[in-house]
């Protein structure tokens, strides 16, 4: 079998040689670009050309520090790697100037340094000691932000395709499956089904033709870890899929990527072409006799296609509607053939398990939820971004250590885990370990890993209404409870938010939520009521406040607000009177003004306009 060893050594040399050259790396994932990363790239490029400097420019995937985007890294020969955050085009040039001309870092912009074996610079925090990275363990995201995702050489240099080589040369199909079972890896898509057992089922069903599918639909709003993996380290997913193909005896794979990720699709397509060019994918991989071809199937805008059977129908060119199970995909999946479906992150874990062994993986995490999980920290948190943490870490650590606590020191109220299929967890449960089973007991679920932090200014009824609006629009319409039930729940919640909720609404809402949860055909319908049930369970008082006192404690539900002018603070400058669309404000110049609650449409334009902050929403 043709081995990659020599090629790997050569690529490593090339990669290390490049360390004694000046290198500037800028994060150009979707979030990097959205934060203005391209402008920084152009400015630096222009500066390097004008000055005629011998500098290697490199674009990388994202390190996970969205709060600090755009990110620029400077590698000087013989020095540690300096990571700069919130870089603007002008400051980037200034930083480079200082580095190249005077060899000094600019502490005011620095996020951290990575010594890489060299002598660390004084009084600059090391990356791994910063709050964001301290309790993280980067196995799946290890290469993201380090390598150039469009260079297969970088991937191979960092141990890429070593696992595939090991599997094809030394391991039998059963051994691979046993290794995955021993590692305790569970599905990262949300269900948490043991991956080893799933592969074994597909392996056991007969049939010359089998398929491997990677579910990269990631429809959860607020979740983007799959995108970062696909954009930052696409080859790890391809390798994981190839290993699975070998294990279950499939020769064809599909990556179902949602249409809203064009950059991920572009990088995946390049990765597949590069791998096929090097004989690592396609026919007779590395002369081992095993062939495996991967195709990309683009989604077309349907959250329900994250569900296994709906996804397969979508690849088959049909409406993405789930079907009855059994038969499970392992027996009869894509075009009726045995199929194994796993999430992006699950496949990305596989090469690590094979290379470093099941025990290395099993050491991380709790006794029934092994390994690490990538979470997308968003919402009212100081440090938003991607964090890969060992399973079993407590919520408090994630929110306050990694996340850096709540923005402008507001009080923590709850965290939503699992997106629209998950539930919210109040402050009282901050110390529960994050693992599959304990989250389910709290009425939430691991889900794909979206973690939205909310502070005291968030209204939980509005959050439940927001999630219901999402699942109602994404319901496929096949089964009655989900098609009708989600809309009826949404209508009740909207009535409550508009102050027209009646006393019986809470019971109807809870009863309907339980019926939809227990009778819906697929995961979407079964988990759509979770946000409602969780908010009812922990924040029932807020519902009652909205219904009986017609008040919104967090001041979010607009129809329930009374906008009042504080006579003491009002200087009578009439600015608010001019801007008010419903001319609900009366009063002469220099005299305190007042708002007529009947006319006021609560658009809050006056609050924004008032220079003296005299108008508040009570």
């Amino acid at each position, binding site marked *: 079998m043709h081995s990659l060893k020599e090629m790997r050594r050569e690529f490593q040399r090339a990669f290390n040689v490049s360390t004694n050259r000046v290198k500037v790396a800028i994060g150009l994932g979707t979030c990097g670009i959205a934060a203005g990363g391209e402008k920084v790239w152009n400015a630096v490029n222009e500066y390097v050309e004008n000055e005629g400097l011998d500098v290697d420019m490199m674009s990388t995937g994202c390190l996970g520090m969205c709060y600090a985007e755009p990110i620029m890294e400077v590698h000087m020969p013989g020095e540690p790697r300096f990571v700069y955050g919130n870089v603007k085009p002008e400051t980037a040039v200034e930083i480079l100037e200082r580095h190249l001309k005077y060899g000094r870092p600019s502490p005011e912009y620095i996020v951290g340094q990575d010594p890489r074996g060299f002598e660390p610079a004084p009084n600059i925090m090391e990356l791994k000691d910063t709050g964001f990275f301290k309790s993280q363990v980067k196995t799946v995201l290890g290469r993201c932000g380090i390598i150039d995702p469009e260079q297969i050489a970088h991937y191979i240099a960092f141990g890429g395709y070593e696992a595939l080589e090991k599997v094809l040369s030394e391991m039998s199909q059963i051994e691979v499956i046993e290794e995955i079972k021993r590692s305790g890896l569970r599905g990262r898509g949300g269900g948490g089904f043991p991956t080893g057992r799933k592969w074994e089922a597909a392996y056991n069903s007969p049939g010359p033709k089998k398929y491997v599918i990677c579910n990269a639909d990631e429809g959860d709003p607020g979740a983007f870890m799959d995108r970062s993996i696909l954009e930052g380290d696409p080859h790890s997913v391809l390798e994981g899929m190839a290993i699975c193909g070998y294990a279950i005896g499939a020769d064809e794979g599909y990556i179902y990527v949602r249409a809203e990720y064009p950059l991920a699709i572009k990088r995946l397509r390049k990765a597949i072409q590069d791998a096929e060019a090097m004989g690592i994918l396609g026919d007779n991989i590395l002369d081992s006799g095993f062939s495996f071809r991967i195709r990309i199937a683009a989604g077309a805008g349907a959250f329900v296609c994250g569900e296994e059977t709906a996804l397969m129908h979508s690849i088959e060119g049909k409406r993405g509607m789930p079907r009855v199970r059994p038969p499970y995909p392992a027996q009869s999946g894509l075009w009726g053939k045995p199929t194994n479906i796993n999430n992006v992150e699950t496949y990305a874990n596989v090469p690590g398990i094979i290379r470093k062994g099941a025990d290395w993986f099993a050491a991380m995490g709790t006794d029934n939820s092994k390994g690490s999980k990538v979470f997308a920290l968003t919402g009212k948190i100081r440090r938003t971004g991607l964090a890969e943490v060992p399973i079993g870490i407590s919520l408090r650590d994630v929110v306050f250590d990694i996340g850096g606590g709540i923005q402008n020191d507001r009080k923590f109220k709850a965290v939503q885990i699992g997106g629209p299929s998950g539930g919210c967890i109040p402050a009282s449960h901050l110390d529960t370990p994050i693992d599959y089973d304990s989250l389910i007991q709290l009425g939430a679920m691991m889900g794909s890993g979206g973690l939205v932090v909310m502070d005291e200014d968030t209204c939980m009824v509005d959050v439940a209404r927001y999630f219901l609006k999402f699942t109602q629009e994404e319901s496929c319409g096949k089964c009655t*409870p989900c098609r009708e039930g989600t809309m009826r729940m949404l*209508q009740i919640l909207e009535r409550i938010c508009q102050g027209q909720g009646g006393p019986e609404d809470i019971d109807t809402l809870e009863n309907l939520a339980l019926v939809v949860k227990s009778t819906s055909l697929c995961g979407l319908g079964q988990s759509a009521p979770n946000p409602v049930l969780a908010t009812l369970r922990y924040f029932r008082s807020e519902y009652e406040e909205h219904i009986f006192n017609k008040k919104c404690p967090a001041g979010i539900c607009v129809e329930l607000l009374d906008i009042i002018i504080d006579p003491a603070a009002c200087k009578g400058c009439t600015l608010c009177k001019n801007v008010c669309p419903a001319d609900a404000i009366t009063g002469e110049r220099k005299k305190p003004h007042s708002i007529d609650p009947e006319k006021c449409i609560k658009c809050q334009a006056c609050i924004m306009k008032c220079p003296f902050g005299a108008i508040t929403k009570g």
Partner: protein
Amino acid sequence: MTAITVSINGIKTTVPEGTSILQAAAGAGVHIPTLCFHPDQEVKANCRICVVEVEGRNNLAPACATAVSEGMVIKTATRRVLAARRTILELILARHPQDCLHCSRNGTCELQQLAAEYDVRYNRFPRDEWQLPLDYSTPGIVRDPNKCVLCHRCIEVCTAVQTVNALGLANRGYDTQVVPSIDHDLFESPCVMCGQCIHACPVAAITERDQIDELMEAISDPEKVVVTQIAPAVRLALSEEFGGEPGRLRMEQLVDGLQKIGFDYVLHTNFAADLTIWEEGHELLERLQEGRNLPMFTSCCPGWVRFAEVYYPGLLNHLSTCKSPQQMFGALVKTYWAEKMGIDPEKIVSVSIMPCTAKKYEAVRPEMIDSRYADVDMVLTTREIARLFRMTGIDPLKLAGAFPAPWMGEYTGAAVLFGASGGVMEAALRTVCELQGGTLEKIDFCDVRGMKGVKEATVYLNGKPVRVAVAHSLSNARVLMEQVAAGESPYHFIEVMACPGGCIGGGGQPLTRTDRDRARRMQAIYDEDRGRQRRKAHENQEVKALYQDYLGSVMSHKAHELLHTRYTLKRKNT
């Protein structure tokens, strides 16, 4: 198959592996309600009405789709299960028009039955009906999208059983709808109006176009002479509407009843069925001699004819040029029969009572005016006639009986067979085999009988083998047509009926749930055939008289003008 024992509401029962909870419960005498379940269709598990509690499982399991496993403990009527079913019913009813009192399915609607069974007395959810216009675009079928409960049964029958693909789903979630293809009206879609979707629909979302008012207008007009023809499959199914077994109603009772309703003259389509055998038999022999346009297809089923015109315009020359018995009868009633009875054809209203909705379309085809007037003015289905009997307070099963009008009232056992799939073939073979002399000892051709999708037989005509085939449901017809299109068809003569089981399962018949009901009706047809004295089409004396007095000879120019037609391509959104 290993046997599995489960406990349903405490009753122990043993069933083979792979049985669903629904079937196991039925076996144990436990009733579980269903809505989207249909015995002859794939399990869809859309409506979730049939959910039950299974020990050790936190959500409720759909009985139709969950297979039993060893030692399963099932409870089908706990408080949680009943609350779930009632909530789901409330959800459906909140979007369903509340006009049960003047809905055509009042009393036979499955949703109405469930609402009564589960005591849905109030609805917690505000009304939110669709308020869409009704679709009257086809002469045979009317669609009321506001009543659709999205069980997908009509789509399944139109796509899997009939392969016409006229109906499909549109939009997603709360706005999901069943629409004709590309959401144009039904007439633009490839719909052949076979009416199988009416049988599949649990509610009144799809019904036959109602022509009772037109009929009453004609009957009450003293100027008009209302003449009707009755199809063979109508009589035997009508008794089901009045609580009788298929076939209990005698034809004389039906004739008596129709006269009491106000028809001036009652005759039989069967007369024209025998006539069709004469014409089509000769056409077959002609084609066999010349070896031209073989295999020949029957053309008495208008749904099948329209299917061929839409999907196989290149093979229309294979269809027999004979009209269907209904149209032959229509052409003759305003010419030969008017002359014989001395009635001014202008005054005649030609009505036909059919088990079929597609006949309503055939009657308005532009080519069907060879009697210089509309051959058939209106077509009523078995269901409409049953409604008419109820309206006029007549219970046909209690009537003494009456005889049909002269000249076109006689018919043989062969004509009766037309109602069942394979009947036309058997009738044709009985005549064709005897045309070249000699009499057949065995006249029952059993290989073309029964519910099998495609039936085959080989017969010897003047020493040469003639291979024949019979197909019912258009999915089977498509199999045979693909063979013909590829030029590999081994057959010489093929009978096609669009509806499963033939006309006894037609779109206008009393609502038929399962193939078992259709098989029972087939048996009633074979019994009637066996009971008749004359059982071969060429023994029909009135047909002989027709040829002598009026048409001259078989396939004569006059016969060709009145009893034959042509077919043309139909451009549709296939």
